Structures are given as C-alpha cells and as structure tokens.
C-alpha cells in the first residue's frame, strides 16, 4: 500500500502503478460526484473519464499544502460543469415557468426516511441548471457569487434556481413518502 504522498509523487512521474492505485483509492468517490451532476450513468462515466485524465495530466500543479481530496473533487466538479456547458446547446431547456410549482409543506426530512438511491434519483430528475446550482450550493458549499462566476450567470438567477430546485425536490420527496407509506 502506498501513502498518499507516494501516490502523488508516482503519478507526477507518470507511473502506471501509482496512477492505478490512486484511481482505486478515489475512483468510487469521484464517480459519486459525477453521478450527482449528471442525468444518468452514461454521462457520469464520461465526466469521470475526462476528470481522471485532467487529474493525471495536471497533478504537477497540485501543492501538498492543500487537501488532495478537495483538489480532485473540485476538478471533477469543474469537469461536470464543462460537460454541462458543452451539452447545453443540445439539451432541452426548462424555463423557470415551465417547471410546475410544487405545493410543499415544511415537514421535516430525515436521512433514514429515504435511501441514498431515492435521493440521487430526485437530483437526477432535476432540470440541468437546477441540478448544477443545487449540487454546488448544498453539497460542495459554494456561495451564490462563486456559482454565478463559475456558470457565468447572474447571482439572482443562481438564487432563484436554487429556490425552485428546493421546491421541486420537496414535491418529489412527498411523492416518495406517499409511495413508501
């Protein structure tokens, strides 16, 4: 077993063994990230491959002082955003008005109430723009200003998309609750 430092140094020397070991260590985690930002497994796999190529090619620019997991996660998120931008012109766009307004209640949600797969399916069913903003804000912890800069949109657009994503998810979770009951 290699330490993280050894893995990084080996990858910097383009060692195939170290690259494979690094993939084994972080591959599943990064695939989880890719799945959250895409609609399905096929797109997630594309993002995963592109992300890993970037990691291997740019590992020289990584400085040891920063969190390596944070660094590779950020690369994967940026790759997903790039993938979203590339496919934006081919995708069907939901305007805010097109998404049905959910009648929601402020009922509490528990982690145990839903499985991770159910939660993942609700994220995957979000319109592309909502999903990206929701993931960046809620899971990765970006601020609206950072999201606006990354996606080249207005801050208010980021805020409204998050709000609508929240309502959409509430409605979906309520549906799941009724089915589970």
């Amino acid at each position, binding site marked *: 077993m290699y330490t993280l430092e050894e893995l990084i140094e080996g990858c910097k020397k383009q060692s195939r063994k170290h690259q494979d070991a690094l*993939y084994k260590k972080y591959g599943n985690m990064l695939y*989880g990230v890719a799945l959250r930002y895409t609609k399905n497994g096929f797109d997630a796999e594309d993002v995963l491959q592109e992300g890993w*190529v970037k990691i291997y090619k740019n590992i020289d620019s990584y400085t040891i002082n920063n969190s390596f997991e944070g660094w590779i996660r950020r690369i994967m998120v940026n790759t997903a955003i790039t993938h979203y931008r590339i496919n934006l012109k081919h995708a069907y766009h939901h305007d805010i008005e097109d998404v049905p307004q959910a009648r929601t209640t402020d009922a509490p*949600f528990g982690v145990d109430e839903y499985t991770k797969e159910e939660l993942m399916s609700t994220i995957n069913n979000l319109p592309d723009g909502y999903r990206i903003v929701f993931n960046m804000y809620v*899971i990765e912890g970006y601020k609206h200003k950072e999201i606006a800069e990354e996606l080249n949109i207005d801050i208010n657009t980021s805020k409204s998309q998050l709000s609508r994503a929240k309502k959409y998810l509430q409605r979906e979770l309520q549906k799941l609750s009724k089915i589970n009951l």
Partner: protein
Amino acid sequence: MKRHEDPLFETYREAFAQYEAPAPAGTLAAVHRKMNKGGFWYFSWTSLNVYTLSALIAVGLAFSLFANEGGESSALSFTPKEKDLSLAAMEKTQEHLSLNEEENLDDDDSSLKIQKLASQLNSHQRGLVNQSKSNASSANNSKKNARTLAINLAQVQVRHEVILEKDLQRDQNLNFANAIEELAASSAEKTEVPSVDNAQGILDQAKTGAKETGITLKSKQKVK
C-alpha cells in the same frame, strides 16, 4: 436562510457528503487510452482506419506490379545491365531536362527578339504613316506637275501637228514645184528654140506658188 438551517439541504448534504458509487469497469483503461492519445503507438494502432489501410494496400499493389514488370528479377536487385539501362535512362532524362532548359532559354531569347521586332515594327509603322503623309503632299505636287506636263504635252502635240501639217504642205508644194519645173523643162526641150520668156514665165509661176506655201526657192538645185 442559511444552508445548514434548511432541513432539506441537510438531508441531502448528510446523504452525499461522503457518497460513493462503484465506478464502471473499464473506466481506468479508457482513461489510459485517452492519456496516450496522440502518441505514436496510439496513432499506429488505434487510428489504423479504412483510409490508412486502403493506402497501404494501394502501395503494396503498386510495389507488386513494379516487381512483376522486371520479370523474374526483383525490383530491388539490379543486374549490371539493368543498372546500365537505368543509368542511360537517367542520362537521357538529364539531357532532356538540359534541352528543356535550353529551350526555355531560347524561348526567353525569342521573346526578347519578338519584343525588339515589335518595337521595330512600331517604329516602321510610324515611319510609314509619316511617309504616307509626305507622300500625300508629294502626290498633290505630282498631280499638279502631271497636269502641267499634260498641258505642255498637249501643247507640244498641237505644235507638232501644226509642224507636221506645215511639213506636209511644204512637201506637197515642193512636189508640185518639181513637177512644174519638170514640166517646164520638158516643154522647153520639146521646142527647138526654147523661148526664154516662156520658161521664165513658168518659173515665175512656180516661185509665186512656192511663196504662197511659205517656202522660198532660191535656186533650182536647192529645191532638188
């Protein structure tokens, strides 16, 4: 509302903060293929598409045809004769090339010549134009001269005719005078005693006749 205060957001954050999913098999191999993209071996084996294959086949066919043309001998193994032939062919092509170069040089000379000739022709044409202008003026002069000459000639002809008429008249008068003189002489001979008065009278008649025609007879011998 802060993100950690929203129960929905907390639910998703707790669920996906450390979420992992088994990555599909073959992803790592695909990553390595993408990493090697652009390398020599990638190009030689993964980009061996229909076009490169067809190009290789075409090259092989061309090589086999070239080898068959030489009969039993291989295309790459030269016998001395073949070498000589190939050298001769090379020399021929060299000569041909040099000739072509010379022809090209000749072409350059000829073009220069043509240019010179063209300039000469232009100057000649200019000269002809000038000459024609001068010719026109000279023609006018010659016309005038011809007219005067024609007039002169006509005058000369008229004078000549007049002279001829005069000459003819004189000849006729002379003949007439001779005839009279002969007649007078014969009549004097016929008479035994020539009458001087009669002869003189006849001679006077002849002189007056000659005077009328403008000819003066000084003596009998002169008229003859």
